[in-house]
């Protein structure tokens, strides 16, 4: 059962290589997405009983074999992948999936890599899933209208090279961990870290910092930030929407490494704490300035992704149960809403002809009757206006994260960035929607990319996430509180993976 969320998209991707017809591929993708959603819900219900599900691949016992671990946090993230994957898929069915023969296969591989990364309890296996999702993301990035190919290639090459460099760092970190601790299993690392000998301490610290740096790169934290807006704003809307969760992989993995792996082992003392909150705040501020400099709606969305990952990383720095719970709640809503903004930008771009999603006055009206309410809900949610979940999430984070020393900077950064988002989104409403009919110029027919019903369903799915998360705010907050409590009870994770009896294995020479 725990392996199904990974296996489903993998199988679907393989099937798609056998059936080249687009309609058939779409059918398989939808079936896989719906089945994945059902499995994710079942897993969430099962994980919420409080047991940590462990799946031993090939039935090899941990720490020798690879394990997939499902606790409440992993189940939540798998469900989020499903909830984000389906609307992105629907958006892609509007036509952008026709721009490459293997679009759907790559899409499924990206989903498989994502769920695998969230589930695995083995660091090298995490690297493998990272590479699967990165390779799929590289290829998906190259899909889209041929007019913008040159721009996309430039941004894409930088994205690929940067991530290859990140992968190299990750491998170095893994080699150092294995060389010193003799294991790559997260639970085993957690067990062995307090027993590191003095001679190995420097190497272990280096390895852990390198690993954290890789996760920070994935989350695009300062100073490794500027690749993200350049890349995401140029990807096709459906792909960009799914990419939003790629940054969250970095956040969640760092959270797991810090809370489960490091715990309070003396050897990891002070690795993140003096500087992570500062970098996170710097990311938020840079992104807030970036929002103002955006000339296209997709750029605004990309900078919003950065604000979100800076906010989340600040909470990771403090990793108390309360901050973790707030982080999870904020993560879910900001992922869905940022993705919604990318999808909306795709709709707007396709309907405004040559203007695209630039924040300029449009010519003729372009179906704003149903886009406008979606825009309103999304914008209010992203700016964090009450009673939408952005407000609740930010409030929880403001109360839960930070200590006396950081309180002032933290509140200022979050509130200022919210203000910047509010101003920019409010200002964009005019040129994007209200002034649309003042210049009756023919904007041309609706471009390929969002034809048919599916993209609209995809958009409203993501827009509806806001109100639904408000209605479910109570149960949801309870769930994240339980998930945080489970995450911080480290021994339950370690014992679930390694078994209750911690046999002292022979130390490596």
């Amino acid at each position, binding site marked *: 059962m725990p392996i199904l969320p990974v296996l489903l998209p993998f199988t679907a991707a393989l099937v798609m290589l056998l059936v080249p017809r687009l309609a058939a591929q779409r059918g398989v993708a939808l079936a896989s997405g719906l089945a994945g959603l059902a499995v994710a819900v079942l897993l969430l219900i099962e994980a919420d009983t409080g047991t940590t599900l462990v799946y031993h691949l090939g039935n090899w016992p941990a720490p020798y074999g690879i394990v997939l671990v499902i606790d409440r946090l992993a189940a939540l993230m798998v469900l989020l992948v499903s909830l984000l994957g389906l609307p992105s898929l629907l958006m892609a069915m509007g036509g952008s999936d026709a721009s490459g023969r293997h679009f759907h296969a790559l899409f499924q591989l990206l989903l498989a890599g994502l769920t695998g990364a969230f589930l695995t309890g083995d660091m090298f296996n995490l690297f493998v899933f990272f590479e699967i999702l990165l390779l799929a993301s590289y290829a998906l990035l*190259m899909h889209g209208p041929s007019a913008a190919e040159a721009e996309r290639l430039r941004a894409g090459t930088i994205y690929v090279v940067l991530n290859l460099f990140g992968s190299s760092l990750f491998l170095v970190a*893994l080699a150092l961990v294995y060389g010193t601790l003799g294991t790559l299993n997260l639970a085993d690392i957690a067990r062995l870290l307090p027993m590191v000998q003095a001679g190995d301490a420097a190497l272990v610290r280096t390895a852990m910092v390198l690993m954290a740096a890789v996760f920070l790169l994935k989350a695009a934290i300062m100073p490794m930030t500027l690749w993200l807006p350049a890349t995401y704003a140029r990807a096709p809307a459906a792909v960009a929407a799914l990419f939003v969760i790629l940054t969250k992989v970095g956040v969640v993995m760092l959270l797991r490494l810090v809370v489960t792996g490091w715990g309070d082992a003396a050897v990891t003392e002070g690795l993140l704490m003096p500087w992570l909150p500062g970098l996170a705040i710097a990311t938020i501020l840079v992104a807030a300035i970036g929002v103002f400099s955006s000339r296209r709606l997709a750029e605004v969305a990309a900078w919003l992704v950065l604000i979100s990952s800076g906010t989340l990383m600040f909470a990771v720095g403090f990793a108390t149960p309360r901050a973790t719970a707030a982080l999870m709640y904020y993560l879910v809503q900001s992922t869905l809403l940022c993705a919604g903004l990318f999808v909306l930008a795709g709709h707007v771009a396709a309907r405004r002809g040559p203007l695209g999603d630039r924040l300029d006055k449009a010519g003729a009206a372009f179906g704003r009757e149903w886009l406008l309410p979606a825009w309103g809900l999304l914008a209010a949610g992203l700016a964090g206006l009450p009673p939408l979940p952005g407000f609740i999430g930010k409030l929880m984070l403001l109360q839960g994260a930070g200590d006396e020393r950081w309180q002032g900077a933290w509140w200022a950064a979050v509130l200022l960035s919210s203000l910047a988002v509010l101003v920019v989104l409010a200002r964009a409403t005019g040129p994007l929607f209200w002034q649309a009919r003042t210049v009756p110029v023919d904007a041309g027919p609706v471009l390929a990319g969002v034809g048919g019903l599916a993209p609209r369903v995809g958009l409203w799915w993501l827009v509806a996430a806001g109100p639904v998360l408000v209605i479910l705010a109570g149960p949801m907050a309870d769930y994240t509180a339980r998930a945080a409590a489970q995450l911080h009870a480290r021994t339950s994770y370690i014992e679930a993976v390694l078994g209750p009896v911690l046999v002292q294995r022979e130390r490596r020479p």
Partner: protein
Amino acid sequence: MAMLLALMIGALVAGGVWLLLRPRSWSVVLGVTLLGYAVNLIILSAGRIDRRVPPISGGENLADPLPQALVLTAIVIGLGMTAFLVALALRGLAALGSDRLGEGPVDTLSADDEDDDGDGEGTKGA
């Protein structure tokens, strides 16, 4: 032996990083490759570099097979990534008419390394 390996890794990383920072995609591809070699050596050295016997033979002082499995995976993934990067660079060359990376007008970059990659294909302009 350990010092030799360390020096090799150091040289590979230094060369790789320097090439990565070059403005042309071909040097970047080479840089990524060199960096990959360095990483593979680091992984291999995680299994210790003294003389050991194969783990299937039994007896004392067995070699650790896991780093070799890890390095194999890393090599395969690295090969795939490099292939993709080469394809991307070629497509960029075709689409942009230049193998320069990064934003900004192509011609304002310094001309000191004009066609220094020696393949004679450095089509200027675009």
